[in-house]
Structure formats: C-alpha cells, structure tokens
C-alpha cells in the first residue's frame, strides 16, 4: 500500500487485525448489499466473542448467519432478526445476546458515531421497551430519549465500485446501511464488485469519500435473493 492506494489483494490482508471480542459494524439490509467475502473471512479466522452491529443477521447458512455456526457472535445489535433458526436457538439458550434497536435509530447511531457525535435525542422508542432506563428530555413539547451512538473496531462494507483511493459508489438499494457503516469503523474495509482508477468515478457522484476507507478488496458475490417476487410480463 502506497500513498492513498488502499487496495489489498487478499482477504487475510483485508481483515488483518480483527481479534476476539471486537465490535464489527456491517452494512447490508437482509441479504442485499452484504460484504459476502469479508464475512467469509471472519468465519475462516475463527475469532469469537464478537459484537456485530447490522440491521439483520443474515439467514441460516448465508450472510452473517454463517458466523453463528461456530458461535462467533456474542452480541448482536439489530432491528430485525426473524429470518434465522440458529439465531433463535442461540438466543433462547442464552449463548447469544441481542439488543433490538429501531431501524432508523440504528442507522443514526452509525451515522452519528462516524460523525463524532456521541449521542442524540430521538422521539423514536419513547414510552416503549426501547426507551426503558434512558434519559428523557422534552423538546418542542414532546419527550425524546437519549440514544448513544455506535462505533466499531472494524466496519465491513459492500460497495459496487471503488477507486484505488477508496472512493465508493453503491448500486441501487444495496446502498442501505453501507455508507453509515463505512464512517463508523476504526478500520473500514470495503468489498467491491469492481476496482477502478481514481478519476473514473465523477467526484460529485461518490457516495463514500475515500477518507473513511482503509482497505479495498475486489470480491465475487453470489447476491442471493431472499424473497423473489415477480409479476407476469
């Protein structure tokens, strides 16, 4: 790696430094826009005791779900975890802890974490189990709860294209949580479909500026579809 060139050539290099008990923030919504190869590398490394922050936890045998197979995740922070039988089993047996977080609050926790804002007030969750034990303050006549933001030791991100400097663009709704995740990792690793040269992506169309990105790797993706629904032509 020289200068701003962030491209690495192996998954080992991409995830080097990940250790037991670290916090990993992962982009993706369901199975859409997930860094498949980086998840595979975490599985291969066998690190355990992880706290994983992601909207969902994959499905049995795919996505983040594979990290449950060897009990690598100790705590999951997510908004919805309903697609995964192994998750359910480990949750009920107490091997896995889950912190359910409203989806918008989760996105904002990552955004704020990456933006250097340690906490924020939101009306979301006030008066519900999510608000229990949290500081309440009234703004404009309405109660809000104080939500701490989130940063991670690692952020794993899936982008469509990145240039060598780490400037990224996302494709369609595979964007989702990825731009926020990218800002919130001490080490942010982006797995992409295509690596291009600096200048190939017009500067004003870049979604994630390279300053947030530490490593870029070209991956190959299965892009499994969770619910295929069609209409007749």
């Amino acid at each position, binding site marked *: 790696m020289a200068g701003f060139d962030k491209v690495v050539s192996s998954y080992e290099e991409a995830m080097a430094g990940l250790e037991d008990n670290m916090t990993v923030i992962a982009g993706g919504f369901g199975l859409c826009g997930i860094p498949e190869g980086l998840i595979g590398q975490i599985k291969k490394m066998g690190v355990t005791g992880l706290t994983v922050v992601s909207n969902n936890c994959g499905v049995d045998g795919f996505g983040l779900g594979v990290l449950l197979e060897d009990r690598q995740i100790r705590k999951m922070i997510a*908004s919805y975890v*309903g697609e995964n039988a192994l998750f359910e089993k480990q949750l009920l047996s107490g091997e896995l802890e889950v912190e359910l977080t409203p989806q918008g609050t989760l996105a904002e926790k990552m955004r704020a974490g990456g933006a250097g804002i340690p906490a924020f007030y939101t009306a979301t*969750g*006030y008066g*519900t189990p999510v608000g229990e034990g949290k500081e309440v303050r009234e703004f404009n006549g309405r109660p809000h709860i104080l939500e701490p933001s989130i940063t991670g030791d690692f952020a794993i991100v899936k982008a469509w294209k990145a240039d060598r400097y780490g400037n990224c663009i996302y494709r369609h709704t595979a*964007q989702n949580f990825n*731009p*926020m995740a990218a800002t919130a990792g001490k080490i942010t690793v982006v797995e992409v479909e295509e690596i291009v040269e600096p200048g190939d992506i017009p500067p004003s169309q870049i979604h994630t500026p390279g300053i947030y990105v530490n490593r870029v790797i070209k991956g190959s993706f299965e892009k499994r579809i969770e*619910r295929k629904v069609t209409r007749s032509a």
Partner: protein
Amino acid sequence: MALSREQIAMRVAQEFKDGSYINLGIGIPTLAANYVPDGITVMLQSENGLLGMGPYPTEEQIDADMINAGKETVTASTGASIFSSAESFAMIRGGHVDITVLGAFEVDQNGNIASWMIPGKLVKGMGGAMDLVAGAKNIIVTMTHADKHGNSKLLDQCTLPLTGVNCINRIITDLAMLEIRDNAFHLLERAPGVTVEEIKQKTAGKLVVDGDVPEMQF
C-alpha cells in the same frame, strides 16, 4: 359483513391524496398500493432506501440489488430516488412522509400502538415501525377489530409492550373506520351491513358515536 383484507386495503387507498408520499407496512397495507384511486399519483417510500417504489419485476427485470423493505424484489418507478438508510429515516423521522399505513396487535384510545412484541413469544424485532410511528404526520392502522376469540383490539389501554405513544389518528378495521381524538375512538364509517351495535360490542375502549354513521362506499 366484515371486510376482506382486500376491502380494507381498498378503503385505505381512498385516504390517499394526490401527490402524497406514503410508506406501506407489510401485509394489508402493502395491498393498498393496488387500489390507488384513478387520477391521483402517489409515491411509495420503502424504508430500506427507495422513494418511488414500482411494481414487482418481471422475470427478466429481477435484480438482487433492488429490493423493498420486505426484502422482496422490486422495481423503481419513473422519478424514483435511492439513498441510504440514514437518509431514509431522516425523511421518516423528520415528518416528510405524509402517510404511514401499518398493522397492529392493539391500539388504545390515547393513540398508543402495540405491534411488535408479545411477551413469552420470540421477539424478532421492531424493524422500522417505531421510527415510522414516531415520525409520520398521519398514521393509519389496519387490523381486524377483534382477535379470533372475539377479544377487542381497540382498548382503553394497550396491554402489550408499545411501539409508540400517542401517535395513531386513524384505524381501518374489517368492521369500521375510526378516528382517535380527545382520548376516545370516534366512529366515522361502518363496513357495509355492519351495525353500530356490533362495533360497540367489539370496541373495548371508549367509543363515541355521533349521529348517523354512514356505510363505507366502494
């Protein structure tokens, strides 16, 4: 007669105004997209980051990178925009989405809603529901008026853990359309052939019936 799921969705769609931005939850709310009245245009927001959700794709159009909040394959309509989850919930939390339609287990006369958690059963998560009920200007809840044992879901006080407080204005059930204000359910319309008496019987919370209550028109 009690309305079918499709009829509830049809009645919901009559509430849509031309030029509205609308978020539809999973289930009956999603069906409402099929009944948008002629001559009006609405734009559907999907909270995973799509404003201007189009129909499901044809087999040829399927794209794994193009899904809705229900994780189904979908298309974007002309004039759509795609953005991050933070941007999506800025729209929702910031009050820019005009109408949210979602299902519920219970609603009470103070506008509280319970829709995500039944103690003792496995909790899968609230997804975006808490953000949506905290942020939308108008929230329509669709549900059956009573559960399958005949117990009312329109209560004086929710018994289940809440999704949001003091946020629901309108409910469309299989029996009636009601508005919540002044800590009471106000009966606005009846399903065709359903009597005020039956609605009273199946509404556990405070129900206000003002004069003749018209039947829904389809």
